Each structure stands twice: as C-alpha cells, then as structure tokens.
C-alpha cells in the first residue's frame, strides 16, 4: 500500500529540525527582540530595585555605572543575598549584585547566546552594544518560545487536557 499523503506532507522528515539548526546559526540575538532592559545605577538601593522590577514585571535588572553594564540583579539574588540573610533593603545594589555578568551582543548568532546561557546555567543574558551599553535582556522563556514556534503543529495542537474527552459525540 502506498504511503498515505500526510497533511503538510512533502517535506522531508528532518526538514524542520534542519531549518531550526540553520536559523539558530543565521538569526541574530536581535531577531528575538530582547525585552528592553530595566537598568539602575550600582549606587541605587535594593529597595529601588524591587520597586523597578515590580513595576516592570521582570525578575532581572541590569546594574550600570556610568552607563556601562557592571552587574546583574535577579529575584534569585534578592532572595538569597538579601532576604534569606536578613539584610536591609536599604543597601546599594553593588553589594549584592552579580558582578561582570556574561553577555551577548545584539548582532551575535542566537546559537552562541543560547550556548552561553546553558554553559552558565543562566535564565537571563544581558544584551549589550559594541560599547558595552546594555540594550536588552534575552530570557530562557523567549528562547523556548522561538524554538517552539518552529514546531507549531505538535505543540499548539495539543488539547488543553489530553486525558479529557467529550462525554457525548458532537451533535448527539
């Protein structure tokens, strides 16, 4: 019997994976439109950082000094270096930030940025321009969404609950 013609058929089996692999090399970080970074000066207080992150609904803040990126402050840092050790919110960010974070540049290929995220186990990667000025943040969530978009049929066609079936056939 002939192989049935499948919807979307005609593409060789590996086409999507190869396309993704190619796109990861060709697309640059800017393709994902990294979210504009929340930034604060290293002398700003943790209290101000909390307010900024709450207002911006973001768990990650870039710390600058003279406009250049000098550190990263995340909700993890807030928990482990401030709250859990009983420190006050009225201390400068430079005392509790992660200094000299790993970064990627706007025009670098995505696969490089993703590799850096994975090697360091980071959820956020600050994106800087060629002068070291922060222009955005790339999050693991954005990367996963980008990859998922290459496989819309298998991911987005999943029913909300695959164990759930209608009690009666439609129209019965």
């Amino acid at each position: 019997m002939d192989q049935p013609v499948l919807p979307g058929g005609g593409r060789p089996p590996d086409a999507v994976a190869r396309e993704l692999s190619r796109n990861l090399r060709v697309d640059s970080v800017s393709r994902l439109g990294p979210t504009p970074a929340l930034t604060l000066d290293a002398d700003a207080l943790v209290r101000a950082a909390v307010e900024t992150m709450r207002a911006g609904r973001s768990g990650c803040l870039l710390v600058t000094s003279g406009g250049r990126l000098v550190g990263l402050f995340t909700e993890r840092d807030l928990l482990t270096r401030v709250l859990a050790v009983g420190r006050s919110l009225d201390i400068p960010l430079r005392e509790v930030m992660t200094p000299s974070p790993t970064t990627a540049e706007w025009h670098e290929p995505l696969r490089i940025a993703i590799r850096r995220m994975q090697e360091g186990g980071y959820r956020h990667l600050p994106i800087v321009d060629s002068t070291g000025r922060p222009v955005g943040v790339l999050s693991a969530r954005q990367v996963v969404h980008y990859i998922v978009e290459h496989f819309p049929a298998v991911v987005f066609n999943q029913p909300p609950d695959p164990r759930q079936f209608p009690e009666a056939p439609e129209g019965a």
Partner: protein
Amino acid sequence: MRCPACDHVNPPGADECERCQMPLSTLDLPQPQGPVETSLMTDTVMVLQPRPPVTIAADAPLGAAMQAMVQHKVGALLVTDPQGVLIGILTERDFLLRIAGTADYERHLVRDYMTPQPETVQSSDILAVALARMDAGGYRHLPVVHNGQPVGVISIRDVLRHLTRFCME
C-alpha cells in the same frame, strides 16, 4: 484530503472517506517530523529527569520557606497538605512581587503568599503538552504530579537543554 485507501479526494477535515468510508480523522493528528518533533510527541516529561520536589506545609512560616529554597538551591517550593497532595506553589517571584519590604514577613504563613492550585503536568504527559503549558502560561516551573502527589519539578532550563541537544551540533 486524499483517501490513502482509494485515492478519492475528500473535502479538507472530512471524518471519513466519501467513497470507501475509511476513517480519516486520525490523518489530522500532527505527525512528528524529525528528531525534535518525535521527542516532543513520544517522550514523556520524565525524559527531562525532573528534580525531586522540595515541599513545604501551607502553615509553615515564610522564614522556613526561604531557608529551604536557599539550602536546596531551588526557585520554587511545592506546598502540600498533610496527605501530601499538591495545593500550591511558592516561587522567588512571590518574594519579589509581594513579600520583600513587608514587615515581619518571616513569620507570615506560606498559605497567604502561595499561588493556589498551580498548573501541573502528569508524569505520563508528553513533552509537547508540558511545553504548550509553559509557553502559554509563561511559567518557569511546572510540578510533575502522579496520583495527585508531586513527584518532581521541571524547569524552563531543563526544556531548553533538552530541545537544543538536537539542533546545536
């Protein structure tokens, strides 16, 4: 849609072939193409090797929750009732959004700050289901549940590591 048995051309989405009555609805199911899609549709969430859940009681104080998160190096605690059933989740995000700056928060109870009835996946769910939920809800952690009891947690980093294994060579 062309019937694979008799080659009759049916309207798109037909449930069965007009000519030979062969059921066609299964042809509408997405067919995996290539290694990534095959993994998404055939591997269960357990392929991500979910880390063991760190649980806490709803009437525990936030101070104990913080220590547990630091000690176990996790960003999310699963809140369970005395029978071990999952009733909520408490994450780093809750500390940022609602807890930091509150007076005497160490003595407040987990139940007042947790997210009740969090989105979960079953240990038998395929990866595509977990991914669809994480992507749609913007969740960074998903508890893995078996018979109502939490058996693990998968994180967005686990997903990213698994997906890129296929396409970063």
